[in-house]
């Protein structure tokens, strides 16, 4: 890799041994992928994936402390993934002990480290940092050093920013040195689609199911999706962005997608059209039967497959303001139809602290509370990341949550029925 004099000086240790190791990490990371240079990080803020004070992450905390002790922190402030615990989310005594003592005993310590490293503010804990209310929304063409698979795929695809699927730790290291290696999704060539996806469904596909199907098929490749604008329209309005947020998270977690193009909708597809499709691209046709096949392929790993759900999580990734409002209406209507006043399964909607703050200013907040739904800033994935949840039947419409935990996936409509009417 060819480095500038400034970059080489850092690598040579002229600004200290710790910064040299950070630079070495970034350079060697880039060299693995054939990067010939480093390019400046141009976004206002960074985003980190690691927000949880899990005891298993002690080696990461030790590394972060080396950075702090050496004064090697970024000039760029950052948002970070959601907190793993919230007292508003139902927990029994045993779970509380496991969370507080066995799992997240380092949370306060790590929160302190995040502040020292440059956390934007106390409300900056969310996986959906790009939502307007949070304020970490990069512009088209900006170069990022982000991690968090759902945020990276959204920033690349919906906002047109440029970011590789960076891992935790390398995310903050790129931000500290102010440069990231130029390869993959940072390059025009790397943003070309090697898959054409043809959507031929008879109705609007479920975002999280469609994303799952595409992710499992194309893995880390870039798909160019045709026929989705028929269902989403040609404007990136709140509803379309919410759909793409959930869709993208499923492509990234069920596969390893870092960028997708939607014909007639996402910015690069609108600007460059089918010239984004690489020569020899493969084709994957998705119809109703294919979506059903994918749905049926999900393993159910509850101990008792016929158990009644004890908890429902919606919002992985965090729900948008538009989703909180529209789901308030959907829950109200479904409860009315079922003749119930409150949800019959304890249900948690998760969203960013800043979005919840805005939601609480609207009339919808009291209405949603009246249905019994709890709104939380928690990371449901981290809530479920413990052995107690294996025997706890949790339902969700998040394919990311399904992938990483024992939560059982249902479509949005199925979830709505289960939490308002049950299986009657």
């Amino acid at each position, binding site marked *: 890799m060819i480095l500038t004099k400034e970059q080489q000086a850092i690598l040579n240790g002229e600004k200290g041994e710790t910064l040299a*190791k950070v630079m070495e990490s970034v350079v060697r*990371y880039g060299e693995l992928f054939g990067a010939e240079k480093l390019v400046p990080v141009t976004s206002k803020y960074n985003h980190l994936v690691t927000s949880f004070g*899990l005891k298993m992450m002690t*080696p990461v905390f030790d590394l972060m402390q080396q950075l702090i002790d050496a004064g090697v922190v970024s000039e760029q402030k950052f948002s970070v993934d959601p907190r793993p615990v919230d007292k508003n989310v139902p927990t029994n005594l045993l779970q509380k002990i496991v969370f507080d003592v066995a799992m997240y005993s380092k949370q306060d310590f790590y929160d302190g480290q995040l502040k020292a490293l440059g956390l934007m503010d106390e409300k900056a804990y969310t996986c959906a940092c790009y939502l307007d209310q949070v304020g970490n929304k990069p512009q088209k063409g900006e170069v990022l050093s982000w991690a968090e698979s759902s945020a990276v795929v959204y920033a690349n695809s919906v906002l047109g920013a440029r970011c590789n699927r960076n*891992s935790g730790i*390398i995310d903050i290291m790129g931000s500290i040195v102010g440069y990231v290696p130029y390869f993959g999704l940072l390059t025009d060539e790397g943003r070309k689609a090697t898959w054409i996806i043809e959507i031929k469904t008879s109705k609007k596909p479920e975002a999280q199911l469609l994303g799952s199907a595409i992710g499992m098929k194309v*893995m*880390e490749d870039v798909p160019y999706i045709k026929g989705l604008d028929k269902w989403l329209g040609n404007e990136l309005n709140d509803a379309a962005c919410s759909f793409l947020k959930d869709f993208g998270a499923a492509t990234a977690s069920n596969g390893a997608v870092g960028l997708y193009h939607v014909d007639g909708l996402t910015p690069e597809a609108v600007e460059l059209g089918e010239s984004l499709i690489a020569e020899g691209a493969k084709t994957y046709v998705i119809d109703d039967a294919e979506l059903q096949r994918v749905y049926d392929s999900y393993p159910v790993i509850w101990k008792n497959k016929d158990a009644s759900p004890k908890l429902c999580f919606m919002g992985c990734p965090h729900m948008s303001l538009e989703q909180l409002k529209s789901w308030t209406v959907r829950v109200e209507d479904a409860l009315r139809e079922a003749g119930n006043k409150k949800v019959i399964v304890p249900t948690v909607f998760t969203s960013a602290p800043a979005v919840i703050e805005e939601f609480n200013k609207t009339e919808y907040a009291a209405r949603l509370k009246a249905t019994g739904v709890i709104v939380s800033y928690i990371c449901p994935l981290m809530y479920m990341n413990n052995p107690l949840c294996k025997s706890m039947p949790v339902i969700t419409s998040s394919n990311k949550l399904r*992938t990483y935990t024992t939560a059982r996936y249902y479509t949005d409509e199925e979830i709505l029925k289960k939490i308002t009417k049950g299986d009657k």
Partner: protein
Amino acid sequence: MKTFKGRIVAPGNVTAEAVVSHAGLNTLASFQGALQFGDKKATCGDQNNPDLYNKQMAGKALCLPQTIGSTTGGLVLYCACAMGRQPAAMLFSMPIDSLAGAGVVIADVWLKDDKAKMVVVDSLGDEFLNYVKDGMSITVKEDGTVEVK
């Protein structure tokens, strides 16, 4: 016996028993339970990976196409190395992905303890992954040669 040649990502000489994942390895889903709850064998916890689920990964030659899933993947690998619960080798049939690549580099730069060592070779080709089976003996050499028998 068959011999394959790949690209050296983290050099070293090692012999270990193969465990094979034909699908992408979801690093977080595979390692999180083992790292969190003191499983020194690093038993794979990813129920979506029938090849590896419930199998020991620590000390094995883990053969895979690439890693997939959460961008915590690299730091999870870093933690596995720091805690001495890493595979003896990770052998990729494809070029290494950005998450595993970051984890391997960070571990190599920041962890100097021999117990954290993990040999990594990538670009071994589809034939490698088609040939290798659980339980086979794998010897990795410093020049990126992988012997399977």
